[in-house]
C-alpha cells in the first residue's frame, strides 16, 4: 500500500498513514461555467477532512462527484488504489449524510436504518441487529419507534448518520453537518461527530462554510474558492502559514476577529486554535 507522511491535527505526532482516497484532476463544467478546476488531493485512512469554502466554491459539487451522484467531466477517483469513478453511488463503499437529513418520513427511526440493509438482501435478523446496534451507539435506543417528525434536528441527524453507518461504509461524507442545528445542538453534535469517528474509525469528509467548525473537527482542512484548492493542510499550519492572501483573509483574519467574542460567549477557549503570537 502506498504510504506517505503527513501532519495530522494539532498536537499530534507525525505518523505513517495509508491513502484511503485519491482524487486526481477532477474537472466539472456546467454550461461552460467551470465549477471545479483540476482538483487533486489525497485523504488518509481514518482521517477527518474538512472542505471549507463559501457557497458557490464548488465544494458541494465535489462531494457529489466523490460519491457518484454527479459525474465529473475529467479526472478519476481511487479508493484503496482501485478506481471507483465509474461505479454507481451505492457500489463505492461510501455513505453520505445530508444537511437536511432526508429521512424517510413514513418510517420509524428503526425502519429508516433497517430499510436499506433489508434491500441489500440481508436477512431480517441481521438487518435488525445491525440497526439496533448502531442506533444504540448513537444514543437513539429510546426513540426507535418514533417518526422523523417527532425528533429534534439533532436527533434526526443522528438517525441519518446511523442509517449511513449501518451500511458499513469505508468513507462517510457529511454535507454541512452542523449548520442546520441550533446553537446548543451544534456543540453537542461537534463533540459527537468526533466521538463517532473515534468509535467507528471511519474516514470522514465533511463540507462546511464555517471556519470554526472546520478548525474544531478536522484533522486537515481543504480551503476552496472558485473551483480550486487554495490550501490543504492541518488547521495549525493553515493558521500559522496561510498559503495566500485569500486563505489569510477568509480563514485567519476571520478567526482572529471572532477570537475575542468566542472567548467571551462560549468560554470554550480550549477548543479554539491557539492564537499566533
Amino acid at each position: 500500500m502506498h504510504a506517505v507522511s503527513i501532519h495530522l491535527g494539532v498536537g499530534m505526532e507525525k505518523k505513517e498513514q495509508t491513502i484511503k482516497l485519491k482524487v486526481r484532476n477532477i474537472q466539472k463544467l456546467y454550461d461552460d461555467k467551470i465549477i471545479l478546476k483540476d482538483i487533486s488531493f489525497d485523504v488518509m485512512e481514518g482521517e477527518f477532512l474538512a472542505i471549507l469554502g463559501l457557497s458557490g466554491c464548488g465544494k458541494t459539487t465535489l462531494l457529489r462527484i466523490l460519491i457518484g451522484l454527479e459525474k465529473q467531466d475529467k479526472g478519476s477517483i481511487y479508493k484503496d488504489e482501485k478506481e471507483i469513478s465509474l461505479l454507481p453511488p451505492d457500489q463505492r463503499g461510501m455513505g453520505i449524510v445530508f444537511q437536511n437529513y432526508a429521512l424517510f418520513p413514513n418510517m420509524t427511526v428503526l425502519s429508516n436504518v433497517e430499510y436499506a440493509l433489508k434491500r441489500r438482501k440481508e436477512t431480517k435478523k441481521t438487518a435488525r441487529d445491525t440497526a439496533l446496534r448502531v442506533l444504540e451507539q448513537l444514543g437513539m435506543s429510546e426513540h426507535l419507534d418514533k417518526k422523523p417528525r417527532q425528533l429534534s434536528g439533532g436527533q434526526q441527524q443522528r438517525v441519518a448518520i446511523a442509517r449511513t453507518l449501518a451500511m458499513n461504509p469505508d468513507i462517510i461524507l457529511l454535507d454541512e453537518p452542523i449548520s442546520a442545528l441550533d446553537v446548543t445542538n451544534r456543540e453537542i453534535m461537534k463533540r459527537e461527530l468526533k466521538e463517532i469517528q473515534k468509535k467507528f474509525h471511519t474516514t470522514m469528509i465533511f463540507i462546511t462554510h464555517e471556519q470554526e467548525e472546520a478548525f474544531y473537527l478536522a484533522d486537515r482542512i481543504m480551503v476552496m474558492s472558485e473551483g480550486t484548492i487554495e490550501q490543504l493542510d492541518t488547521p495549525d499550519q493553515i493558521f500559522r502559514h496561510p498559503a495566500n492572501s485569500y486563505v489569510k483573509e477568509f480563514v485567519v483574519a476571520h478567526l482572529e476577529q471572532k477570537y475575542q467574542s468566542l472567548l467571551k460567549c462560549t468560554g470554550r477557549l480550549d477548543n479554539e486554535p491557539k492564537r499566533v503570537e
Partner: protein
Amino acid sequence: MKKRKWTAVRILIILFLLVSVVFPIAGVMAQISLNDVKKIMVSGQLGEMLFHSLVVTGISTFISVSLAFLLAWCLNRCNIRAKGVFSVLFTIPMLIPSVSHGTGLVLLFGDNGIITNLLAMCIPRFKVNLYGYFGMIFGWVLYSFPVAFLMLNDSFQYEDYTTYEAAQVLGLGKLEQFRTIMLPNLRKTLISTVFATFTLIFTDYGVPLVVGGKVMTLSLYMYREVVGLLDFSKGAIIGILLLILAIAAFVIDLRNEENANTSTVTRQYVVTQNRKRDVAAYVICCFTVVVIGLPIAAFAFLSVVKQYPIDLSFSLDNIYEAFGLGVGQYLENSLAMALGTAFVGVVVIYFTAYLTARSKKTWTTMTLHLISMISLAIPGIVLGLSYVLFFRSTFFYGTIAILILVNTVHFFASPYLMAYNSLNKFNRNLEDVSDTLGISRMHMLLDVYLPCTQKTIIEMFSYIFVNCMVTISAVSFLANFKDMPLALLIPRFDSQSLIEATAFIALVILAVNGIMKLAVFVLERHVKDPAEPNR
C-alpha cells in the same frame, strides 16, 4: 444502465403523449379546407359567433369570479357557522353536467317553468326572457363558480395576517387594505381563476344548447356541425380557433408570475367582531345555497310528479319511463367509463408526476412536464374531434377504451398537478440518499412515496371519476349508441323534449357523484398520514 432505463421510460411516455395529444391535434389542422374558411369568413357568421362567445363568456366569467370571491370572503373573513358545510354545498354544481344547468333553468324559468307559473299567479303575464344571453349567463355562472370558488378559497386560507396588523397600525382603511394587501396577495390566483373560468365557459356547449335561444356561440356551432351535420372541416376551423384562444389564456396565465409576499412568518387571519358584516355574509351564503338548490329541487320534483304542470300527484312513472329509455344501461356505461378512467388515469398520471417531480430536470422531464400541463389548455370538444379524425379508421374507434383514453388525456392536468405538487414537497435529497444506499427508484415509489401520498391519490381518483360522470365534451363525438355515457343522454333527450327524463338523469348523476364524494370523505378520515406517529 439504470439511468438509461428511466430515460427510456420517459421517452416512452412522451411517445404516448405524442400519439394521444400532439398528433391528433395536428390532425385537426390538416382537416381544415381553405374553402370552408373562406365561406365562414365571408358569411360574417364567424365574426358574429366570436363576438357573442366573447361577450357572453366575459360577462359570465366576471360574475362567476366575483361571486366566488365574495363567497370565499364570507367563509374566510367573517364569523359564520357551518363554514365546512357551506363550502361543500357551494361545490355541488360541479357534480352535474353543464347541460343540466341549462335544463334546470328551463324547469324553473322556462315558459312553463315552476317559478314562472308560481309568479304568474301573483303577477299576471309574468314571463322571464330566459333564452339568450340571460339564460346562458345564469347557467354558466352556476356551472363555473364552484371551480372559481375552490381556487380562491384555497388562497384566502394562506393569507398572512401580519401585513394586515401592520396596516392597522399605520391606520389604513379597509378599502385601502383591500387594494394594497389583499388584491396583490391574491393577484396570481385571481388571474389563474379568471382564465380557468373563462376557458371552462368558452369551450362549453351544454348551457347554450339548452338556453342559448337564437344566439350561437363558437363551441355550440362546432358541436352542431360535427354531431348534427358531420361537417368535420367546419368543426375543425372552430376547434382550432377555440384551441388558439385557450392556449393564449394558458400562456398568459403561465407567464403570470408569483409576486405574493414570501414572508417566512405567517399568522392566520384573525376575524374581528362585526355583527352586520356577519349577518350579510349569512344572507349571501344562504341565498347562494338556495339558488344552487332550486334546480336540484326542480329535478327531484319533476321526477316524482305524474305530469308537470297538469297532474302534480306523486308517481314514479317518470322514473320507470326513464329506465325504459335505457337510463340503467347508460348509467352502467358511465360507471364503467368513469371507474376505468379513474384507475387508468391515476396510474398513468401519478407515474408521470413521479418521473417529473422526482428526477433531475433533464430535457425529457421538462418536455414531459410541459406536455402534461398543456392538456389543460385543450378544450374537450377539440380533443374529441381530434380523436375522431385521428383514430377513425382504427379498431380502437368505437370502443370504451378510446373514451377512457380521451378522458384520461382531457382530465390529465389537474390531477397531474395534485400529484406533482405533493411529490415535490418531499426532501430534495431523498433520491440521492436512495442512490447511495442502493435503493431502487421503484422501491422508493412503493415504500415511501405511495404510502405518504394516499390522500392525494384518493383526491385524484375522485376528481377524475366525478369529471367523467359529468363530461359531455370530449366524449360527445366519440361515443356511439352502445357505449354512450349517461350525461350525453341529456342533450339527446332534451332535443326530444323528454324533460322529465333529463331531470331524472341529472339527479342520478348527482347522486352517484355525491356517493363518491362521501366515500372519499369517509376514506380520507380513515387514511392516516404515515408521517405522523403511530398510536
